[in-house]
């Protein structure tokens, strides 16, 4: 069933998720053609509303929209004036006046994309809001995992890092659980909250490895959010939770896959050699992100029934 917005993973039924993942496959196949573009969204407009800096997600959405032949506009929003409710309302009114069909929103406040969605006819896609959700990241992660494990049910994914502040951890954990994947979290005790009782929690790398994951998913250490120090130093983080050369050897022996949402802090989440590791899926994630976002844009129907809050 088509819907207007994509704000989080919670509101997706398992069959919606599976259909979006299936539909990402034919979009990815387009990338091998000499003409990578299809006319499905010809004449539609996509507005990029990024209140937080992002190069990867921004350009991934932009490429996805352009490969569907939509027109993309970047709505330049400064870092400053936005937190006030008033300016958000003004932005919404501007969106309405521009008659844009799709709005891609990233904002540091959880729930802001939902507010915009309720007040506009445009389809709103949450490209990351605070520590709340990053649904297209979750879809591309699940898509990447399904390429390696067509039936991912029962597989084990270990997510490592600052779980507490991570919308990626939240959304990706959610989607994997909906697909029957077992998820465990590893990180400093204060940063590994009890998200739900189905998630196994670890604070020690070796103990987490004994859980025998199929995939190790490293979260990005948010350098810019280190105003409060949650761990003593980056070097210590690397020693405790990072993929060091020594740990990579064990990972290689066991044939585990490595994922990371990017951009990577080399020497923090992982050592340089991971980039050449044959089972690193980090580049697959980038390519799959475009396909998954095309599938989302193609699925949503602007102007359809507005969703209840």
């Amino acid at each position, binding site marked *: *069933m*088509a819907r207007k917005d994509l704000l989080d993973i919670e509101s997706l039924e398992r069959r919606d998720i599976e*259909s979006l993942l299936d*539909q990402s*496959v*034919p*979009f990815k*196949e387009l990338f091998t*053609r*000499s*003409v990578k*573009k*299809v*006319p*499905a969204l010809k004449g539609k407009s996509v507005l990029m509303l990024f209140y937080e800096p992002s190069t990867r997600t921004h350009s991934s959405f932009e490429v996805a929209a352009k490969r*569907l032949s939509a027109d993309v506009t970047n709505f330049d929003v400064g870092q400053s004036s936005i937190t006030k409710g008033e300016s958000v309302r003004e932005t919404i009114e501007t969106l309405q006046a521009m008659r844009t069909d799709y709005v891609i929103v990233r904002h540091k406040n959880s729930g802001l994309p939902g507010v915009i969605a309720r007040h506009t006819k445009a389809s709103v896609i949450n490209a990351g809001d605070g520590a709340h959700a990053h649904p297209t990241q979750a879809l591309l992660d699940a898509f990447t995992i399904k390429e390696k494990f067509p039936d991912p049910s029962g597989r084990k994914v270990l997510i490592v890092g600052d779980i507490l502040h991570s919308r990626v951890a939240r959304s990706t954990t959610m989607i994997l659980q909906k697909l029957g994947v077992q998820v465990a979290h590893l990180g400093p005790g204060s940063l590994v909250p009890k998200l739900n009782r189905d998630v196994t929690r670890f604070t020690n790398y070796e103990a987490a490895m004994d859980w025998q994951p199929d995939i190790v998913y490293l979260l990005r250490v948010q350098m810019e959010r280190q105003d409060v120090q949650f761990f003593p130093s980056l070097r210590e983080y690397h020693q405790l939770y990072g993929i060091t050369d020594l740990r990579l050897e064990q990972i290689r022996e066991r044939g585990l896959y490595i994922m990371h949402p990017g951009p990577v802090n080399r020497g923090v989440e992982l050592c340089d050699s991971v980039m050449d590791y044959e089972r690193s899926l980090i580049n697959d994630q980038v390519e799959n992100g475009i396909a998954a976002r095309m599938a989302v844009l*193609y*699925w949503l*129907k602007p102007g*359809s029934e507005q969703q209840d809050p």
Partner: protein
Amino acid sequence: MEDRTLSADDINDGIRKLADAIRDRTGDSPVALVGIRSRGDEVAERVLNLLGEEDRELAFGMLDISLYRDDFEHLHDNPALQGSDIGFAVDGAHVILVDDVLFTGRTIRAALDALSDYGRPAKVELAVLIDRGHREMPIQPDYVGIALDTRRLDHVLVSLEGSDGSDQVRIVQAIDSQSS
């Protein structure tokens, strides 16, 4: 008027007729049969099987035209994609597009657009198992298996062995089809 049906024999005759006509017209030069999903791919495959006994270069492909439709505005849900599979070089190829039913011609318009995004064929022809008339675009088939007289609002429901389990065509009269 009662609903009409075509039998498995009619369908096989239609497919044979397509294969014969393609053989007559294209001789032993290389051709690529591209079936439009769904069911056009099965028709193409069955035509190909009949041509396959010959000693010539035959290529096969499948085209999903969903992303090239002209009616997204009117659809509640966008059509589910099945994906295309064009495993040969389209540049310079002699392509025969194959579909099960030719009606308004809009699908073929979309297929021509989709095909051109894979390359520039030397020649494109159109083969259809059933031509039911009522074109809305300047598109005509080069090869026709079965020419069917229908009214504009009739439904032509095609089942094929591979896709649906058995070969059959039903022509279902629209309830209100006085004005044809």
